[in-house]
């Protein structure tokens, strides 16, 4: 147990957690919405510091992060808990559980960093559940990892308050943020998220120099409205710039959303077309290898510069982050 970083005391009985916009007001022994924070004698503690429940070696393409060290491995770690409630979560067996319900192992920041190094990884990915709810762990490990020359990447829903976000951004190199939709009601009812908060945080991350890629999971009938997708793409281009990669991904009936069908490939192709029409430069569709929608194409000359299939990089033609055909800079973290 470690004392939490962002909270305030409210009288003698309660504390208010200031980590995320839920801002839970908690009395002793009460658990936060995220299931991993609890006050003891008027002090708020994180219960998952160094308490990893899922540890794996993943290709970084699986996060997905396509513009960060292609072909490298990310040492991936997660604890229990999440501050969202997405009804389609593929990692619900950890994100929607308390640390008491999961089977955990102690992996303190130092050990985490050395494991990553020993396994020949170039980055540590704080992923699967929600790195912001194990904030103190992420922060401490990121500081150590940076000192050791490892990259820190987050795979997150992006739900956090501004102050803690700004603090952690100093140590984070890249993030894949789930922009789960562009409809306020959908985000509130299906994910327990507030769209404005997510959008503000995306702008903050970009301005603090974090390399951001977006993932948009399209759920049939719930957030597959093409007008909304277009609106989202316009916002991304205007506020984050056309170089932010956008990954469309396919919904599969799981967790609570069981009585829907998987996203038809046509819907994903349509979404990609819209995003390209709106002027985004790097638009990918995950896990559809029969279409070449995973390769990076130079927006200037139209030549393929990184060709990918599944989680494999088949060929990387970039030279110092530039297109070998026209010399255009392809943004990302390439070395």
């Amino acid at each position, binding site marked *: 147990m470690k004392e939490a970083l962002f909270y305030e005391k409210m009288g003698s009985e309660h504390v208010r957690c200031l980590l995320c916009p839920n801002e839970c007001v908690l009395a002793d022994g009460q658990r936060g919405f995220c299931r991993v924070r609890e006050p003891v004698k008027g002090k708020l503690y994180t219960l998952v510091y160094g308490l990893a429940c899922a540890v794996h*070696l*993943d290709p970084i393409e699986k996060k997905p992060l396509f513009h960060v060290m292609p072909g490298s491995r990310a040492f991936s770690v997660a604890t229990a808990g999440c501050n969202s409630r997405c009804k389609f979560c593929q990692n619900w067996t950890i994100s929607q559980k308390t640390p008491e*319900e999961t089977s955990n192992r102690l992996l303190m920041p130092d050990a985490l960093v050395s494991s990553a190094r020993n396994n020949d990884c170039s980055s540590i990915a704080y992923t699967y559940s929600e790195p912001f709810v194990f904030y103190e762990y992420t922060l401490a490990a990121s500081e150590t990892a940076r000192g050791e020359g490892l990259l820190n990447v987050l795979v997150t829903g992006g739900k956090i308050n501004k102050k803690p976000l700004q603090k952690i951004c100093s140590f984070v190199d890249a993030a894949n943020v789930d922009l789960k939709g562009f409809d306020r009601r959908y985000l509130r009812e299906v994910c327990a998220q507030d769209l404005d908060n997510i959008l503000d945080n995306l702008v903050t991350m970009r301005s603090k120099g974090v390399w951001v890629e977006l993932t948009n999971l399209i759920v049939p009938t719930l957030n597959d409205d093409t007008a909304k997708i277009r609106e989202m793409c316009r916002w991304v281009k205007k506020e984050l710039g056309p170089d932010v990669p956008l990954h469309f991904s396919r919904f599969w009936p799981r967790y609570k959303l069981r*009585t829907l069908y*998987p996203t*038809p490939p*046509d819907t994903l192709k349509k979404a990609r077309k819209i995003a390209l029409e709106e002027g985004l430069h790097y638009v990918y569709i995950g896990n559809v*290898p029969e279409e070449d929608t995973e390769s990076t194409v130079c927006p200037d000359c139209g030549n393929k510069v990184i060709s990918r299939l*599944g*989680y494999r990089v088949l060929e990387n033609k970039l030279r110092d982050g530039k297109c070998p055909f026209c010399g255009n800079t392809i943004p990302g973290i390439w070395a």
Partner: protein
Amino acid sequence: MGLKKIIPISMLAAGISSMASQIIFLREFLVVFSGNEISVGMLLAAWLIWGSAGSFLFSKLQEYFRSPAMLLCGIQSLLFPVIPLTFFLIRSSKGFLAVSPGEISGYGPMALVTFSVLSISCLLFGGIFSVSCGAYSSVSRVAGERAITRMYIMEALGALIGGIGVAFLAIRVLSPAFMVLALGVLNLVLSLFVRIAAPGRSMKKGIVAGQSILLFLACGMFLFNAPGAFDKLSRDIMWSPLRPAASRDTVYGNITVTVSGEQKSFFVNGLHLYSVPDRMSAEEAVHFVLLEHPEPKRVLLVGGGMGGALAEILKHPVEKVDYVELDPGIITMAGEYLAGDALSVLNDPRVSVLNVDGRYYIKRSRKRYDCVIIDLGDPYTAQINRFYTVDFFKELRGVLAPGGIGGFRLTSSPNYISAELADYLSSIYMSLSRVFRGIMLIPGGTMHFLFSEDEAVLSPDAVKLEERRRQRGIDIAYVRSYYTFDRFSPERVSYALEVLRKRSAPMNFDFRPIGYFFATLFWNSQTSMSFLDYVMMKATRGWIWSGAAILCLFLLFFGAVNKGRTHRPVLLSVTTTGFAEIYFQVAILLAFQEIYGYVFYKVGILMASFMTGLACGAWFIEKKMPSEKYIMKALLRTQTAVCLYPLILPAVFFLLSTTSSAQLYRLGSTVIFPVMPFAAGFIGGVQFPLAGRFYFSLRKTEGRVSGITYGMDLLGAATGAFVSSALLLPLIGVYSSCLLVFLINSCAFFGIFFSIGRARRVKSAGI
């Protein structure tokens, strides 16, 4: 026709309406609750509890009515709108259950919806019985207990007709909406007849005229396809926001197809089965298995064929593919909605579609296959669970050629295996490893289990698979090294293996189907935990036996230490018999499935046999009703039979499942199995009127007597339905459950036994 004839007919019709509605409602609830079988237990419990409440309530109520026939007429007229309305509420209940469309619901909301939606119709169904008994005995001058017995026989016959008629005949040609409207009209017709035949009152003419007009209008709506409109309207509400292109009910369940652009999706009982095209899913079902085999020539596919698996198999140089589908309705529907390649595979000369139950086929087949693919999804139901038991794996071993490989896949979680998931996957893994020496796990969002007798055949080697793919020259997009290198990563494979082995969950057997128990718990862990989940999580064998011991002590105390309250042991006997009778039915079905590989139509015969037994038993005792003096002795005899039956049952099961005599084996399916439920029904059929006769000797009115005995019988049955399928059978299995049923019924036996002894002592003391 006088009331004396009308009332038995109306009771027959009530039996038909009640059983037919039950089956229709049950099927609809299964779709609403995404095929979760606990909903069956919940419906039965709600049905029986409301039914018994209705029976009590109306038996009280009819004392305030001068003519019970009038009350009967009222109930029947109410059923006219209530049956279709209940049906409509069930279909729209998804709206109250989930916050967002497409969402599954937990037990809490499930129970709330089931109990509230069924309340009115079940109260009315329960009421008909006690009111009819009262009405019949008042017009026929038949002694009270005889009236009850006759009503009981008519109801059992009605249930028999309604059950078989709907579940196996009407469902093929009529929409459920048509049936519920027709059942409503049937009740309206009867209420009209009862009203006409009932003794005259001043209002009579007006009511009869009103009802006739209503009936005329009701029949008119059938001419204008009102059932079709009703079906579509309610179905659209049920499936919103998806718009079903077609929805059809087969003997096995509901199949619904949705169309979204090029993609057609099939749902079975509300749960997504597969979408076409969906290359990833189809490829993964097939190629892991077929690429692991060096030379797959003969392949058996169980399920999944129309979802693209068949087409994927044919990409390999195979010589013969036998394809078995659980529900042939799937192939028919696929024929209507799929086109081109997805369908033409059925005409490939290498493919044979076998119209037979998969389990039955594998048990009896003499063929040998290089690869067997079971693509049936998770064992959330007992029906699917029989493809994941030790017993089935042994049969499967028999059809695999030397070096042959089998495979199936189950829902898993890509990055972390939770406790509930571990129990579920481990139970299946342990069962599989009991039979096959070589097992290869492929972890991921779905976990693939590949298995072979030969340990050396299987190895998760992305390069080897890629090489074989190239040699066979086949076009695959998903089972390729650019995915498999991650899927086969030693770190992930060893994590999965370690979790499943360490968990070491109990194995899944036909006679102890714990696999679907764990699958259900895992499913429930997706929604918030409820009290029931908590009970199921904590339940162990020791816990069940301790619970049973406490229950028996209580029952003995309640039944035997009764200080002359002789009605107590009788009440106890009726309740424990109700419990036992339901358990017998479930156990017989389960055993039949294990021994004969389960032919779905046999369920109808077994159910019919039980209801016939019930009616025959009641008819028999009506002819041979003992005098008041000997009632308790007769009850002691029937209770002895209820106690002995669960001791004979396991012996018969054991004999038939181990016999090597082909003649005996055949005799089992043609004679012994159909006779067993008949015998069980007969015992129950004899006991129920006896209990009624006993109560009658206490000078209670007919309505009250039937209300109490019927109510307790239903209560016992409700508990039995729920406890035996949710806890007893999965946790302690068929054999031990039989012992438990024996013990509980022995308590009732001793209750009656002591009661007779006391009566004798009292008599000899000359009081």
